[in-house]
C-alpha cells in the first residue's frame, strides 16, 4: 500500500455515504444518515441504542438495501448489493457477533472464506493471541478469541475500509490495547476505519472524527479533541446531559457492622475459581472487577445455584447454605441477572410474561394466575424502570437497554435480598446506563445487598461502595471506592498488586 499525499487523501474519500434512508414497514429506521471516511482516518460512529446504527451498518456492508441515498467507494458510485460485493469493493466488516462457523475448525473456516493462512496467522500473532491451533474447533474457543480471529480474518483480506462493530466489547484489557494499536497502524498505512463503540475512552484515544447518529439522521461530525465527549453525548441524546456525575450515596455507607448478608469463604469451582472469600452487608454494593475469564463467571454461577462449588462455604445471615438448583438460590432471596441477556429472556414472549416468569416457576405458582395482582406488580415494575413498552408483544423487538431493564425488573417484581448483577450495562446506551446506576443505589438503600461485576472500570465509582478485584480465581484486592481509581484497579486486575498469592 503506497502512502498517498495529503491532497490525494483529501480529494478522494475512501467511503462516502450521503442521505441514506431506510424504512421497515411504517417504522423509519434511517432518514438521513451519512458518513465519510478518508484514507488514513479512523471515524467513530456513535449513537444511542435505537438511533439506527445497526441499520446504517447493514446498509454500508450490503446486507440491506437503502430506500434512497448513495454510497460511493473511492469516488465511484457503487451499488453495494450484497455482503460479498461490499467485500470485493474493499469494505470488510467485523461484526459484534462472531462470524465463524462453530462446527468447523479454524483452518476450514479460513478456507470457507478464502482467507490466506499466512497473513491471518501473522495478524493473530500481532494482535497478541497466543496458543491458537488451526485445528481447534471454533465452537470450543472463548468469545474473546473469536473476536480476535474475526479481526485477523478481516485484516488478512487487506481491506480499504475496515468496519469494527463494538470490537472491544468482549475483550480483556490486554487484548484491547493490542487491538487498538493494530487498528491505529492500519490507519497509518492509509486505510480507513469505521469504529463503533460505546466506550468513550477508546474513541478519544483512537479516533480522528466522530460521526453522531440520532433518530436515524446524522446530526454531527466532530473532530475528536480532549473534552469532546460531553459534546458527543449531548448530540447523541439530543439535550444537555451532564456526564458521569456520581450517583448520590456512593461510598457514604459507614462501614457496616453486624452479621453480613452474604459471606463467602474459600470458594473454589473447577479450574477457574480457586479461592474466593468476601462478605456483603445489607445496603452495600460490592463491585467486582476482573479481566476476562478470571473466575467471575463461575463465582456468579455458584452463587445463583447453576454450579456447585468444589470447596468453600456460603453463609447467608450467618447460616450456611448450599444451592443445588437456581430455585434454592431464589428461595434464599438471591436474584441473578446474567451478563448475556439472551440467556435470561423469553425472546418471543411479551414483556409482561417475561417479568412475571418467576411467579409461575415454583409448584405453588402452577395454578390459576392471580391476574389482578400480577398485572399490578408488573405494571409497577414497568413504570419504575421506565421500560419502553411500544414493542411489548415480543421482548426480541426491544432495544438492548430495555431488554436489560426487563431482566432486572423480573426480580423487582418478586423481591430479593441479594442481587447478583453480571455486567448489567454491557452494550447498552448511555441513557439506560444512567437509569441503572441510581436504581442500583436505590435498591441498596432499601436494604438489598448487591454484587456488581462490571467490565467498565469507570462505572465503579458511580455505583459501588467497595470493590473486589479477582485475578486467576483469587481475590487480589479489596478496595474502598475512594481508593479505587482506574490505575489501582487495572494494576490489581492484572495481578500486579502486592498480594499475588495465586500468580502464575
Amino acid at each position, binding site marked *: 500500500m503506497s502512502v498517498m499525499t495529503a491532497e490525494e487523501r483529501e480529494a478522494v474519500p475512501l467511503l462516502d455515504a450521503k442521505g441514506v434512508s431506510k424504512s421497515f*414497514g411504517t417504522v423509519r429506521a434511517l432518514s438521513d444518515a451519512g458518513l465519510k471516511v478518508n484514507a488514513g482516518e479512523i471515524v467513530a460512529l456513535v449513537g444511542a441504542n435505537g438511533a439506527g446504527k445497526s441499520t446504517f451498518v447493514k446498509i454500508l456492508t450490503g446486507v440491506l438495501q437503502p430506500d434512497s441515498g448513495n454510497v460511493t467507494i473511492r469516488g465511484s458510485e457503487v451499488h453495494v448489493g450484497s455482503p460479498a460485493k461490499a467485500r470485493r469493493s474493499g469494505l470488510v466488516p467485523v461484526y459484534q457477533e462472531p462470524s465463524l462457523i462453530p462446527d468447523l475448525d479454524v483452518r476450514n473456516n479460513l478456507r470457507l472464506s478464502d482467507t490466506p493462512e499466512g497473513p491471518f496467522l501473522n495478524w493473530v500473532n500481532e494482535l497478541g493471541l497466543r496458543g491458537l491451533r488451526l485445528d481447534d474447533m471454533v465452537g470450543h474457543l472463548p468469545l474473546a478469541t473469536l473476536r480476535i480471529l474475526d479481526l485477523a480474518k478481516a485484516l488478512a483480506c487487506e481491506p480499504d475500509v475496515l468496519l469494527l462493530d463494538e470490537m472491544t466489547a468482549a475483550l480483556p484489557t490486554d487484548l484491547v490495547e493490542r487491538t487498538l494499536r493494530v487498528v491505529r497502524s492500519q490507519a497509518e498505512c492509509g486505510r480507513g476505519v469505521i469504529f463503533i463503540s460505546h466506550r468513550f475512552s477508546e474513541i478519544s484515544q483512537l479516533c480522528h472524527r466522530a460521526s453522531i447518529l440520532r433518530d436515524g439522521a446524522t446530526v454531527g461530525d466532530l473532530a475528536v479533541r480532549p473534552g469532546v465527549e460531553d459534546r458527543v453525548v449531548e448530540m447523541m441524546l439530543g439535550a444537555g446531559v451532564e456526564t458521569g456525575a456520581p450517583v448520590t450515596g456512593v461510598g457514604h455507607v459507614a462501614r457496616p457492622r453486624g452479621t453480613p448478608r452474604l459471606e463467602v469463604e474459600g470458594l473454589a469451582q473447577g479450574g477457574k475459581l480457586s479461592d474466593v472469600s468476601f462478605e456483603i452487608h445489607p445496603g452495600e454494593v460490592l463491585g467486582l472487577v476482573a479481566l476476562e475469564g478470571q473466575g467471575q463467571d463461575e463465582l456468579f454461577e455458584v452463587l*445463583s445455584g*447453576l454450579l456447585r462449588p468444589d470447596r468453600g462455604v456460603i453463609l447467608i445471615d450467618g447460616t450456611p447454605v448450599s444451592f443445588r*438448583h*437456581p*430455585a434454592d438460590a*431464589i*428461595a434464599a432471596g438471591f436474584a*441473578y441477572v*446474567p451478563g448475556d441477556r*439472551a*440467556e*435470561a*429472556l*423469553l*425472546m*418471543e*414472549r411479551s414483556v409482561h*410474561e417475561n417479568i*412475571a*416468569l*418467576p*411467579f*409461575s*416457576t*415454583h*409448584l405453588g*405458582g*402452577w*395454578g*390459576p*394466575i392471580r*391476574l389482578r395482582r400480577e398485572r399490578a406488580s408488573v405494571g409497577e415494575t414497568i413504570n419504575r424502570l421506565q421500560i419502553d413498552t411500544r414493542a411489548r408483544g*415480543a421482548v426480541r423487538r426491544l432495544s438492548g437497554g430495555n431488554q436489560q431493564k426487563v431482566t432486572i425488573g*423480573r426480580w423487582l417484581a418478586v423481591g430479593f435480598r441479594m442481587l447478583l448483577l453480571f455486567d448489567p450495562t454491557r452494550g447498552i446506551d448511555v441513557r439506560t446506563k444512567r437509569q441503572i446506576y441510581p436504581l442500583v443505589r436505590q435498591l441498596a438503600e432499601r436494604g438489598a445487598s448487591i454484587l456488581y461485576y462490571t467490565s467498565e472500570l469507570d462505572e465503579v465509582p458511580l455505583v459501588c461502595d467497595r470493590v473486589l478485584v479477582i485475578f486467576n480465581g483469587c481475590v487480589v484486592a479489596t478496595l474502598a471506592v475512594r481508593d479505587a481509581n482506574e490505575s489501582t484497579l487495572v494494576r490489581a486486575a492484572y495481578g500486579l498488586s502486592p498480594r499475588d498469592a495465586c500468580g502464575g
Partner: protein
Amino acid sequence: MNGRVEKPRLTAAAGQLVRDHPLIPLVALLFMLSGVLELLRPGIINPFWLGNTVKFATPLAMLAACQVLTMLTAGIDLSAGAVATVSAFVVATVTPLFGVPAGVGVALGAALVVGLLNGFGVGVARVHPLIMTLGTGLVATGCLQVYQRFVIATGTEIPHFLEWLGTGRSFGIPNGLFLFVPFSILVLAGLRFTGFGRLLFAFGSNEHASRLSGARCWQVYLALYALSALIAGVTGLLYIGMIRAPSLSLANPLLLPSVAAAVIGGTSIFGGRGSYAGAVIGALILTVLGTMLTLLQMPEGARRVLFGLIILTVTALHARFTEQN
C-alpha cells in the same frame, strides 16, 4: 408503477392481520373446503353432516391437545396414539370382569404409567421427546399384545355411558361435545391463565431462562407428559365408545393426523408458539378434507398423495404468513 407499490402494501396488511389473528385464515379455509364440498355434492351440508363431522373431529382434536401441549415445550408425544389404544382396549376387556369404574380406572392408570415414563425420560434422563415417546409407544403396543393373550377368553364389553358419549346425540348434537367442550375450555384457559400454561410457553422459548427463574425442569416435564398421556387415555375411552370394536391398533391411525392438526393450527414444532384453538380448527379441516377426498372417488393412493400435499401447502402458507419479519 402504482400497482407495484400497492401490492406489497396489501400483502403486508394481510400479513399483519394474519399475524394478529392467526385463526382467521384457518376458519376461512375451513369454510372454503365446506363450500367445495357443497359444490361437489349439493345438499351435503346439513345438520346431520355437521354433527357427524364434529363427532369424528372430536377424538382427533383431543389427541391434538397432547401434541400442542408437548410441542409448546419443543417436544412431541408420539405415544399418544398407542396410549389411546391401550386405554380403549383395557377398558373394553376389564369392564366385563370387574365393572365399569375398575375398567376406566385401570385404563387411565395404564395411560398414566406411560406418561410418567415419558416424563421421566424427557425430564430426568433428558432423552429427546421424539425418541422417548416413540419408544414408549412401541413398548405400550407390545405390552398390549401380550395382555391380549391373557384376556382373549373374557370377551369385551364397552361401558354403556361411553357408547352414549361416542355415538349418541341429544337434540341433534353429538354427545361427545359434552366431554369435548368442557375439555377444550379447560385446555384453553389452562394455557392462558395458569402458571403451568405459562411455563410451557416459557420452556419452549428458553428453557435455560426458565431454569434461571427457578423452574425445575423435571417437575414440568413429568407433569406435562403425564397430563398428555391422561388426555390420550380419555381420548381412547371416547373413541372406543364411538367405534365399538376394540382392536390392537384402534387409535393409532389418529396419531399423525393429530400432529398435523396441531401444526396446521399454527403450533410451532420448535416450541414457544401455538394455540389449542388453532389445533381444534386444524382437526376440523382435516376431517372435512377427508370427507372431500372420499367423495372425489379417487384411488386410495392418489387420495393419500393429495392429503399429504394439502397438509404441506397449508402449513407452509400459514407458517409463512405468521412468521415475524
